[in-house]
């Protein structure tokens, strides 16, 4: 079966649920010690400053308590870092990622074929990075972008080849390790991820995509993404994630830092479909200069528990932010997600739209913060959160915090929580749709106002995942 056929014909969990025999060139022991960190850094042949940053982050990690006191937060008691294998380097020749899919070992090539990545690359992407376990195994970008000075490479390679710019931006002013315990953890054992640099006034008109795949049981994935969009530039970055399901827990704790220059525009889209044994605890943040624009689009379908609140600091006058969040929680899932926006300059603008769906006893929570600083006059924010529940066992909460320290602002907030109606289902059934299709239609209608704003390639993938999730539990 060709990869395209595989995608068309396996609209079931099978599309993501396949495991490959684990073949690694190097992996650390379970747990987190200074020795482990030194081993990782040495295996990567890193400059001294990076090792120092890692070790400092490790100290901060140890000093910080596990977050347990957030109201209604997911239960993280199972997350025992000493049970995690933090670093697995797959057995491939090329460091920094092959430029040709054929150069990869068959099992890795087959993994990404099944996920449809090479196919998508041919059709609609400017560049692709693919991470398997702890390392980027494939990295390629169309030549035309290279010629314009765009850099899209593996984060590890960036540390070597673009050392100065990485040293300046890597976990310094955007997401310092001190931000939270998992940011500190990430700072200590990060591996892989993407580095993107878009020069002044360059518009990368097709998205670049990174795909993150965890294959091994009990591992942790800690990729770091650093995006720098210079003045007047534009780009769209898509990340996808998945893993097969194991009985032991997996941990994903990524770090994303985005620098949006003056008049620049960055769109960051995530489709997260981690297996239901994965804890997904990320820190993502953007700093936006004057009249720049940041958009976060997040679809959270997978994972056992997610805590993710992409945040934007609107630093320059007239900077703007748009958050679109779709979360779906089924049996045993606790998806705690939202958005944070800091309006630190006048005439800044943010809109946050969140849609969540809880079914079969799942839980979704919108947790968000909008902060408008004193002096950020003529700023505006609009927050809208809607939740849909399938049954009485499922739960959904909304916690939209607002800190408004400036009086000349425009603040709007709306929230709805509803249960899927039996009469609505019967109406659709009486027109010929079966129970599942009727519910699916109601759900896609519920998220429609959001999906119609999405880039097409993202909307297609998202809709397919929503369908898949619905089939998985309602069938």
């Amino acid at each position, binding site marked *: 079966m060709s990869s395209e056929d595989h995608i068309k014909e396996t609209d079931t969990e099978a599309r993501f649920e396949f495991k490959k025999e684990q073949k690694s060139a190097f992996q650390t022991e379970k747990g987190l010690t200074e020795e482990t960190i030194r081993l990782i850094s040495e295996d990567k042949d890193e400059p001294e400053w990076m090792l120092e940053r890692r070790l400092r982050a490790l100290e901060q990690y140890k000093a910080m308590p596990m977050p347990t006191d957030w109201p209604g937060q997911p239960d993280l008691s199972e997350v025992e870092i000493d049970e995690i294998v933090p670093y697995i380097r797959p057995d491939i020749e090329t460091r920094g990622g092959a430029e040709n899919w054929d150069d990869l070992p068959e099992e890795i090539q087959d993994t990404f074929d099944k996920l449809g990545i090479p196919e998508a690359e041919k059709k609609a992407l400017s560049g692709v990075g693919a991470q398997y376990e702890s390392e980027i195994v494939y990295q390629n970008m169309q030549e035309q972008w290279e010629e314009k000075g765009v850099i899209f490479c593996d984060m590890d390679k960036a540390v070597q080849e673009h050392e100065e710019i990485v040293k300046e931006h890597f976990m310094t002013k955007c997401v310092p390790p001190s931000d939270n315990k998992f940011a500190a953890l990430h700072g200590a054992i990060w591996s892989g991820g993407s580095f993107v640099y878009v020069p002044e006034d360059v518009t990368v008109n097709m998205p670049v995509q990174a795909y993150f795949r965890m294959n091994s049981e009990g591992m942790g994935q800690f990729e770091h993404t650093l995006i720098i969009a210079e003045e007047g530039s534009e780009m769209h970055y898509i990340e996808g994630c998945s893993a097969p399901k194991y009985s032991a827990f997996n941990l994903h704790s990524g770090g994303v830092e985005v620098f949006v220059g003056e008049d620049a525009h960055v769109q960051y889209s995530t489709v997260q479909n981690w297996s239901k044994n994965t804890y997904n605890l990320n820190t993502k943040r953007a700093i936006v200069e004057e009249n720049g624009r940041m958009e976060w689009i997040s679809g959270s379908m997978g994972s056992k528990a997610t805590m993710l609140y992409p945040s934007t600091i609107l630093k320059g006058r007239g900077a703007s932010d748009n958050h679109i969040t779709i979360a779906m929680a089924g049996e045993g899932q606790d998806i705690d997600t939202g958005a944070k926006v800091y309006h630190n300059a006048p005439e800044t603008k943010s809109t946050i739209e969140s849609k969540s769906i809880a079914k079969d006893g799942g839980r979704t929570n919108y947790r968000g913060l909008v902060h408008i600083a004193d002096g950020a006059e003529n700023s505006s924010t609009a927050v809208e959160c809607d939740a849909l529940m399938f049954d009485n066992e499922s739960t959904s909460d909304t916690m939209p915090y607002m800190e408004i320290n400036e009086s000349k602002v425009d603040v709007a907030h709306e929230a709805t929580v509803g249960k899927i109606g039996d009469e609505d289902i019967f*109406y659709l*059934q*009486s*027109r*010929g749709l079966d129970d599942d*299709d009727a519910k699916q239609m*109601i759900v896609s209608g519920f998220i429609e106002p959001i999906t119609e704003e999405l880039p097409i390639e993202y909307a297609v993938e998202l809709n397919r995942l929503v369908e898949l999730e619905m089939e998985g539990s309602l069938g």
Partner: protein
Amino acid sequence: MATLEINDLHARVAEEDGERILRGVDLTVESGEIHALMGPNGSGKSTTAKVIAGHPAYEVTDGEILLHLDEADVADIDEDIDEADYTWNLLELEPNERAALGIFLGFQYPAEIEGVTMTNFLRQAINAKHEEREELFEDEEAEADADEDEDAGYDSSPMEGPTDEGEIGVAEFQQLLSEKMELLDMDEKFMQRYLNAGFSGGEKKQNEVLQAAMLEPAVAVLDEIDSGLDIDRLQDVAKGINALRDEQGTGVLQITHYQRILDYVEPDHVHIMLDGEVVKSGDAELAEQLEDKGYDWVREEVYEAA
């Protein structure tokens, strides 16, 4: 030519000590006929309609609802049809399976579904209907076995067929839709609106008739399709109902309180319900009598005879 046959139907609200509403309804509607079902509030008209369509809020305690089909009704099916496939016991089927066999319910209060455009909805409904028909008429023995084995529930899709088989083409769909909408005097803008969301009462009712026209049912049960309509809309809707009968041979069971719509959609038969039963049937003249005299004389007549 299809026949909907309701025999001695008893139903109650599906909850503990649920109220008994239907107490022995007998009614037969054939393709191409227009029936009016009238009666005072609370006599069981709407419940009859919902039970025919399979509403889960009601439990049938006795009686049967049969749908008899003939060769013309299954002309679209490629399979060999068993003799047994010409008669269906609707009470054993899910609402969507009943719809696939040709039962349509026009709702008194249609649901509003946000975010789903009319076009999207209608295409999916038509495709779902075709797909379900294939399944219902295919491999009957295996399905019958499954039915007997577990009386707890009927698996609506025992096998997932390829979904694109037999789907209606975009051009074909658009043309069909344009024709039907023109007939009902509906603006094409409706097609990009969300299903019933923010529709006026009259628009919703037009939309119910439009859906019936698109789905081409064997029997359409229209529950108070005339309520809340101004005179212009009433005429549009009436034209649509007549077209269902004249162009598609649909049998219509129309539930109404008023003679008004019957001036435009002349019924072949009129039935009167009282206290959960059909107590009197007649021709169009019966409805006119009701308009003049109300229901009291029917009640007197029925209870005197009893």
